[in-house]
């Protein structure tokens, strides 16, 4: 494992080595296609918070900073980077490279809504930047958008600048027990259509710690001020025959963490992500146990490795694609027999391939990980 301690050292290693795999905390090395040979390049030593001017609501960090550490720094100023992806130890660079997000994305968006500037090391060791440290900016092309979800194939992210927000005054989770996932979906869609402004709408089959297993749950996340929470509770209680359970404070905190970490609980299984428009999702979901981010139209299935998986996923994809959606594999045990036969992406297109070819013709950066 190579362990550069600065951007210059990253650049020097990129120039020297034939192929590199940038790694943060390694929480998502089982995401993406099986990598081609190459040396691991740890970004863990680039762990500095470069600048945080609280009054600007902007923070710049090196890529190896763990999100949890960044949140702690921001908490001192009653701010946060409003994103809650899985794995407490995940680094900012890894979260960007995999476009990782969590339940609260319904209200706060994903990395593409928060990232305002970037520095990357290209395959020839050249350092370039785009964007800046201001919250609104049309100076130059938004090249940083290309690096989000690119698995480091267009450059190794060394530094990132984000918009941050004031922390909400209150945070709560409202839990509805449901008899089925279909019922949970329909309840959550009615919340989505209402005048309420939830920050998360999650349907769970296999409940996280603390919730009874084998039942379905509908969870509504609410954040903001006390009067807004009261309004939500009042209307949510009239929505449905079964009275909800309301969690606030520390108990809500641990449930939020459990929701966030749902993907982290089953590293031995193949995880399939299915996407559809929110109101289409329930119609295309297979019957298997699943959890769903109903407000954003995403659902995940945890499946045991099996030879017929590619065929089954292809069928789900065909059904989703009829409505503009898709089904792809997000992660799988590494190694796993037949891993290379799983559908890891949508095949990309000519433009994506041309961008990759222009940027990294020798395939030095994270080779193998990404289909474009």
């Amino acid at each position, binding site marked *: 494992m190579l362990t550069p301690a600065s951007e210059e050292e990253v650049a020097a290693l990129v120039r020297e080595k034939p192929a590199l795999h940038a790694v943060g905390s390694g929480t998502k090395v089982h995401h993406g296609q099986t990598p081609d040979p190459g040396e691991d390049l740890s970004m863990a030593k680039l762990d500095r918070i470069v600048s945080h001017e609280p*009054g*600007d*609501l*902007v923070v710049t960090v090196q890529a190896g900073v763990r999100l949890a550490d960044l949140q702690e720094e921001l908490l001192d100023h009653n701010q946060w980077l409003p994103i809650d992806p899985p794995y407490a130890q995940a680094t900012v660079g890894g979260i960007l490279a995999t476009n990782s997000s969590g339940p609260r994305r319904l209200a706060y*968006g*994903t990395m*593409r*809504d928060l990232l305002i500037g970037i520095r990357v090391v*290209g395959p020839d060791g*050249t*350092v370039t*930047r*785009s964007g*800046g*440290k*201001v*919250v*609104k*900016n*049309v*100076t*130059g*092309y*938004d*090249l940083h*958008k*290309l690096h989000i*979800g*690119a698995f480091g194939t267009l450059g190794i992210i060394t530094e990132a600048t984000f918009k941050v927000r*004031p*922390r*909400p005054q209150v945070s709560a989770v409202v839990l509805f027990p449901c008899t089925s996932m279909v019922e949970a979906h329909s309840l959550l869609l009615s919340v989505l*259509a209402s*005048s*309420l*402004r939830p920050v998360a709408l999650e349907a769970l089959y296999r409940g996280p710690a603390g919730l009874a297993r084998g039942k379905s749950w509908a969870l509504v996340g609410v954040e903001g*001020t006390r*009067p*807004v929470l009261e*309004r939500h509770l009042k209307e949510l209680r009239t929505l449905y025959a079964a009275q909800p359970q309301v969690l606030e404070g520390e108990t809500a905190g641990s449930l939020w963490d459990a929701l966030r970490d749902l993907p982290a609980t089953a590293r031995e299984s193949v995880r399939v*992500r299915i*996407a559809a*428009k*929110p*109101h289409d999702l329930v119609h295309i979901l297979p019957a298997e146990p699943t959890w769903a981010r109903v407000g954003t139209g*995403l659902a995940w299935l945890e499946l045991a490795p099996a030879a017929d998986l590619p065929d089954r996923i292809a069928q789900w994809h065909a059904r989703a694609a009829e409505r*503009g959606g*898709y089904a*792809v594999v997000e992660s799988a045990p590494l190694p796993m027999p037949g891993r290379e036969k799983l559908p890891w*992406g*949508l095949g*990309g*297109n*000519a*433009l*994506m391939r*041309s*961008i990759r070819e*222009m940027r990294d013709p020798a395939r030095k950066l994270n080779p193998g990980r990404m289909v*474009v």
Partner: protein
Amino acid sequence: MKSRAYEPVLTPQAEQALPPVTGDKAGLLADLERLLPPDRRVTHQDDLFAYECDAQTLDRALPLAVVFPESTAEVSTLVKACNARSIPFLARGAGTGLSGGAVARESLVLSTARLNRILEVDVPNRQAWVEPGVVNMHLSKAVAKHNLHYAPDPSSQYACTIGGNVAENSGGPHTLKYGVTTNHILALEVVLPDGTVTMMGGPVADLPGYDLTGVFVGSEGTFGIATRVLVRLTPLPEGVKTILAIFNTVVDACQGVTQILARSILPAAVEMIDQKTLRAVEKYIHAGFPLDAAAVLLVEVDGLRDDLEEQAAAVIDACRAANVRDVRLAKDDAERMKLWKGRKQAFGVLGRLAPNYYTHDGVIPRTKLPEVLAEIARIEERNRVMIANVFHAGDGNLHPVVLYDEREPGAIERVRKASDEILAVVASVGGGLSGEHGIGIEKLAYMKDFFGEADLAEMRKIRDVFNPRGLCNPGKAIPTPGRCIEPGGGKKLPVGH
């Protein structure tokens, strides 16, 4: 038909960015006669003057022709014809751009005026497919009955088009809370610069692959022509409160912004209007602004009605902590609309104060507002020019408006020097050259002050992947290497209105 002699009016930097076209112009004009009926092409010089420039009027050049395609297939055919004849081309919406991005010297202009249909509104999933020529405000009006709107609201929203907004990544007063155009574009159907049609993004979340939509938005028409746009629709806020805060000094008003942002609220808008602008606005619009204030802040909070009182109280409290002279809530919708009318038409009325004006669009870290505004006041005094400030303070997006009379001896040189100094201050505090107006041709010369050559080279390489022959809106957004561009160069300003 015989044409009168015509000379384009181009600053030296624009002349360098847009050299005369050498392709087969006669061949393309013949193609157009074959491809389109007469009422959908403009080729006569007298009719082309309306397409000389956009809202940045200092750079003007006649296009070769203007065409009005009505479908993606027609756009594709026209682009292919341009390729065959080696003629540059660009798409044009309402022509409200502020950086000369739509100047099409001897090129083909593809107007989106007849691509103006709202194709499909998906109310439950809050998204809509629209054609690029749909006017921003028409879209919001069309979906209002479903309690939805299209959130980005440039001041020109009554005229500007979604296609133009996509090209420029347009902002507006309410982007502080709701984000800019890029945060609201889900997918694009694009005619690429070689005429092929492709799709970027989609109606669902987290599509695997590179975010082509993200890099296309804001590429100023240099990556291709969007022919269909999938936009996100946002629920209308249940309630709105607008606060007018009146300050005795500009620095106090800047402190007010800092104080507001330090509270745990996210206002929908925080706009600053200085005394020169207030007086101009009052003379023509009677919005109800105090004439003796050094500056006012127009602050809006919106969302669920339950905590709006609390949020408004926090804003008022923040203004008091910044030495506000007077702060009050707009009492009703009528007063609210009047205040916003004053804000949104400020640029128009400033145009009545002097024969010429030029608006900067630099964006700075918000904590630097007091020192940068103070420095702009010194620049104004030092260079004996008049500068009005009316801008998106909550985003740190300055709009210093330099007012002048080009007939006055030495005026242009002073304005140019003041402009250079303003941008130097913006760069020195870690700011950006443009917050929302774009680089176009007017700001090309300053790009080197904000990005290194390697950064610009990378941007050119990505552009060349989309636009390898460089026929699609050439010379815009990113300076061409190897041409030493001096801001302004000769007598003319680099930039202007």
